[in-house]
């Protein structure tokens, strides 16, 4: 039961994020949804590398040899860094859009269509 709990959490977090991106009309809430999906994916990666009772994968003076996998953690770190950059860029876009359009409603921020 406990073994699958992280994956259920992943599914729930990604589903909430997708819901926000699909049905929320505020652009900032769309960015929040994107961040939620990203957290879900990161959680998925970290839980992939988890070993029951494992310690951090540092060999120097290691008390035991049961360690969690280092690669998914490296992937997650990279992904977090990219996610911060994406979120920062999207939020700064939101600022400029609000300054010029006076609204963040996705029904109104659509001068490009057709």
């Amino acid at each position, binding site marked *: 039961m406990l073994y699958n709990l992280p994956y259920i959490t992943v599914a729930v977090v990604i589903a909430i994020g997708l819901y926000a991106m699909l049905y929320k009309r505020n652009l900032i809430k*769309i960015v929040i949804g994107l961040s939620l999906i990203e957290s879900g994916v990161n959680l998925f990666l970290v839980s992939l590398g988890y070993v029951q009772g494992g310690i951090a994968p540092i060999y120097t003076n290691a008390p035991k040899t049961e360690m969690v996998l280092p690669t998914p953690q490296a992937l997650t770190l990279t992904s977090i860094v990219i996610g911060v950059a994406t979120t920062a860029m999207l939020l700064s876009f939101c600022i400029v859009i609000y300054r010029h359009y006076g609204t963040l409603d*996705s029904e109104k*921020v659509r001068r490009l*269509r057709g």
Partner: protein
Amino acid sequence: MTGFLDFSTPSGFWDPLRWIIVMIIALLISYYIWKRGNPKHKKGEQIKPFFSGYDAPSPEDAHIRAGNIYWGFITALKRYYAFVKSIHTGNINDYIGWYVGIMALMLIVFLLWGGA
């Protein structure tokens, strides 16, 4: 080797040499026709275009703008264009919706017929 007038592509791609020879000949013929001119043309007589007896509009007004070109084609396909344009809403939620929808469709397709 096939004959000179065989225009299939024996080597898998087009053979530009024959085409260019044909094009040069065509250009020479059209240049000859253009050079001959219209013998009935007299200078000073046929300057103004005939516009049902009225004064022809100035070139600035006669220039057809982009929005009016292919009016007939677009009108004939009015229902198709109404449908296609209704898809292009410009709403970011719809963009993501189409992506997620196709993703769901392809998940089903690949799970059923994806292979072994």
